[in-house]
């Protein structure tokens, strides 16, 4: 999609202002149902579009993506715009600084049109935990779009924006991408700066793009990647031109598929779609075989210790003292802090803070936190082992298709298993992409995931794109 858009913008067949207006028209007509956007900024978007149009009209050489609209998940700061993280505790919080990715988005000439809905503080797999609104799956209003980047996925699936940015800590890009039938890429940990991304779990969070095509995600990855001196965990790896991986042949590539994720742990329709996808890759000259991996359950357990632990500390700053909601009625400090947080945070956030605090407490640290870190090391080692024999790994992105809204209201922890295939990838800091590979009988999208070695987004993109050249799943539009 992007190459076509770039061409049309350059030869002035298309104006950026028109693109932006089209985006807002679609938001007007579709978002009442989808509820993907928490806030929009038509005025500043049009201003930017007009400025870019003037430059393009004058024949100026601009950044490749100049003039194209984009949606941004509401946990990424755009200076001067509100960042809520879909929480009441940050209601009205105007970001005093730009996230590094927002700076890069601006340098790339991309035009942010609004902030997208999410599970509160990125904790969730359905976007039902937003304190403001529930985003619906564009394919079926009764179903969830996935989470936590549900708004980012739905906005692209509904054709409101050509692409968006989300964040992924345990699957929060890939899982909603699978549920909404779009492409979702989580780069390697350290590939994209986290400066200006409101932290959930510092050692797991990464920002990544939602797009309709794998090719588009390569363009976006080029735009947002890079070492940032303001983020001590960002890496100095050289950034290749990821678009060069697009179109490379896959013959001879070896794909490993964890056996466990081909078992009846996975919905039969999902399984069949994924196997069919693998066979398409086989037909292109790649080979695939089932492998023992064995750590999925352990990884899930370890994640639900480590992520809440880090989150419990990351969210301590919301104490009502300097910004955000403050319970003014309280007459002493401890009461003020606990009331501000108790009313400002939703249930799932509180649940995870309490869980995280517990696993770090004196007497429990060794049994839980330390042990989970050791399991994490085992998971990393297991991946290294697998990658010594295979170029990439492939598997279903999720065990099922999207679930009905409200399915887990009685048993919130049961929702955690939705991330079983995505979590290990975050624990190991590897790149992973979800690509649409079919639909269920109920016309709900199915996605399959390709995982690469650390910093090998190129192989991931290469394989994912090769698959997409042979299929049309990604061209289907929900809400057309």
């Amino acid at each position: 999609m992007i190459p076509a858009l770039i061409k049309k913008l350059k030869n002035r067949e298309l104006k950026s202002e028109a693109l932006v207006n089209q985006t807002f028209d679609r938001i007007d007509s579709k978002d009442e149902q989808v509820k993907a956007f928490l806030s929009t900024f038509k005025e500043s978007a049009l201003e930017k579009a007009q400025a870019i149009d003037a430059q393009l009209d004058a024949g100026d050489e601009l950044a490749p993506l100049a003039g194209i609209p984009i949606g941004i998940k509401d946990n990424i700061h755009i200076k001067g715009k509100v960042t809520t993280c879909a929480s009441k505790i940050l209601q009205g919080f105007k970001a005093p600084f730009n996230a590094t990715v927002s700076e890069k988005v601006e340098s790339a000439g991309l035009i942010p049109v609004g902030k997208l809905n999410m599970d509160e503080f990125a904790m969730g797999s359905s976007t039902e935990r937003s304190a403001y609104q529930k985003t619906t799956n564009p394919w079926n209003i009764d179903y969830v779009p996935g989470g936590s980047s549900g708004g980012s996925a739905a906005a692209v699936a509904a054709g409101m924006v050509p692409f968006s940015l989300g964040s992924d800590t345990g699957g929060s890009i890939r899982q909603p991408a699978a549920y909404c039938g779009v492409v979702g890429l989580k780069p390697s940990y350290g590939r994209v700066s986290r400066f200006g991304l409101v932290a959930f779990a510092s050692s797991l969070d990464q920002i990544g793009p939602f797009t309709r095509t794998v090719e588009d995600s390569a363009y976006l990855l080029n735009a947002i990647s890079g070492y940032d001196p303001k983020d001590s965990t960002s890496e100095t790896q050289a950034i290749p031109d990821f678009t060069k991986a697009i179109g490379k042949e896959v013959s001879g590539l070896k794909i490993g598929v964890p056996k466990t994720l081909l078992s009846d742990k996975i919905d039969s329709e999902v399984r069949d779609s994924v196997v069919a996808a693998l066979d398409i890759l086989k037909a292109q000259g790649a080979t695939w075989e089932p492998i023992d991996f064995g750590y999925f359950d352990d990884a899930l357990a370890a994640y639900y210790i480590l992520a809440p632990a880090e989150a419990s500390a990351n969210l301590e700053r919301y104490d009502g003292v300097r910004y955000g909601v403050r319970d003014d009625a309280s007459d002493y400090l401890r009461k003020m802090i606990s009331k501000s947080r108790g009313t400002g945070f939703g249930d799932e956030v509180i649940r995870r803070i309490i869980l995280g605090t517990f696993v770090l407490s004196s007497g429990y640290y060794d049994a839980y936190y330390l042990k989970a870190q050791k399991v994490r090391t085992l998971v990393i080692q297991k991946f290294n082992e697998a990658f010594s024999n295979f170029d990439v790994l492939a598997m279903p992105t999720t065990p099922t298709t999207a679930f009905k809204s409200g399915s887990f209201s009685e048993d919130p922890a049961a929702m955690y298993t939705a991330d079983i295939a995505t979590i290990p990838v975050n624990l190991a800091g590897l790149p992973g992409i979800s690509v649409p590979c079919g639909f269920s009988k109920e016309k709900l999208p199915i996605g399959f995931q390709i995982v690469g070695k650390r910093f090998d987004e190129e192989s991931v993109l290469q394989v994912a794109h090769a698959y997409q050249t042979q299929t049309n799943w990604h061209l289907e539009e929900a809400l057309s």
Partner: protein
Amino acid sequence: MTQYEVVIGMEVHAQLKTKTKLFCSCSTDFGKAPNTNVCQVCLGLPGALPVLNETTVKYAIRAGHALGCSIEHTSVFSRKNYFYPDLPKGYQISQFDLPICLGGSLTIQVDGEEKEIGITRIHMEEDAGKLVHQGADGIAGSDSSLVDLNRAGTPLIEIVSEPDIRSAAEARAYMETLKSIVEFIGVCDGNLDEGSLRADANVSIRPVGQKEFGTRAEVKNLNSFRSLERAINYEVDRQIALVESGGTVIQETRNYNDATGKTTSLRGKEDSHDYRYFPEPDLKPLRLTQAYIDDVKKEMPELPSVKKERYSSDYQIPAGDVHKLLLDLDLNRYFEKSVELSDDVAPGLIAKWMVGDFTAYLKNQDEDFASTKVSHTQFISFLTEIDSGKISGKMGKDILEKMVKTGTDPDKLIKESGGSQISDEGELSSVIDKILSENQDVVAKIKAGKTKSADFLMGQVMKATKGRAKPDLVRQMILDKTV
């Protein structure tokens, strides 16, 4: 009655003199309007991330070298979690199980005796902000507090001693020595009263001969050397009285009040925080090469221990004076510069006058060696006159006092006082002869064997020469003329 031994361990926080904070580039400048030296990082805004200040690491390594510690090649930052309005992130980034320095020692001098105090560890951590309580002097009785985060994020090193200290005097000596060390190596201003150096004392008692340590109480708010000594002495007495009356010392944090001279309980063990330490995921482990560590050593200012050796062996300066030369950085700098400028005057003489009279006269003027009007050249010129015997010691004191007060050149002052010391026998002879002739009865006494009576005649000669006569020469001449 049981004899008790006092056991003390010191925890000292030193604010490092870096230009910017530990994890952001905000200035550490003191005295700015509240909340102006702040940014998203030290304000703990959502989305902010810490970036390590390399100078802090260098300064921590300097401290490690100065205290003979092992500088760790790998150290890790940790989050120390607790809620307080002066702690913006709700956690302090510190170091827990893998600090930058381990082991080491510090030599103190008490009553002329030297003793080695062990150092357990040194680690880096960020400072919290300040709370300014409104409506009362402190937090008790206040109706609100204002939060100033200028200080939040300032780099600190925490230096923990082994429980080797056995008295309040030793604790004071420890602090004085540690203060001079951190000043001399250029990492800290070392002001207890301004808070750039903060001390907490862990105090316990045990019956003499007992191996196990008694329960310790932590004493805080020691903002002068005097407070430190008084607080520890009070606490020791309190613990002994408690134990003697059948009670037990409980593990708690106590606050020292200088006005009352007492320590009172701040919080007990039950209220003590579970800090839930875990490795800081926003920072990579700090890895140092031996080459880097060695370079810091090469580039740092001369260690007090090295100076001590030089002063004793090369300059032959007595131990008491050496000790004083190493306690005050301004004094030391003035000394080193004076030695550098002097060709003939021995460092020992320079030291003697500096640690004694010069220091006393400065104190009277409320000045120090950094602010003094006396230039190095003036001082050396003064000492040259002393050394040659042109002026007596007594005259010298007066001259120096005037120099300190007015900054006038010594030769001008010597002229004004009527000239320099008279040591010319010819000149003195006529004066002595006159005095002798006026005091024949005393002369008779001396002749009879009462040589002590010569002192009276000496006094008369000194009076007649307005104090300028060289005393021992006068005495000798009187005796020669009378015997």
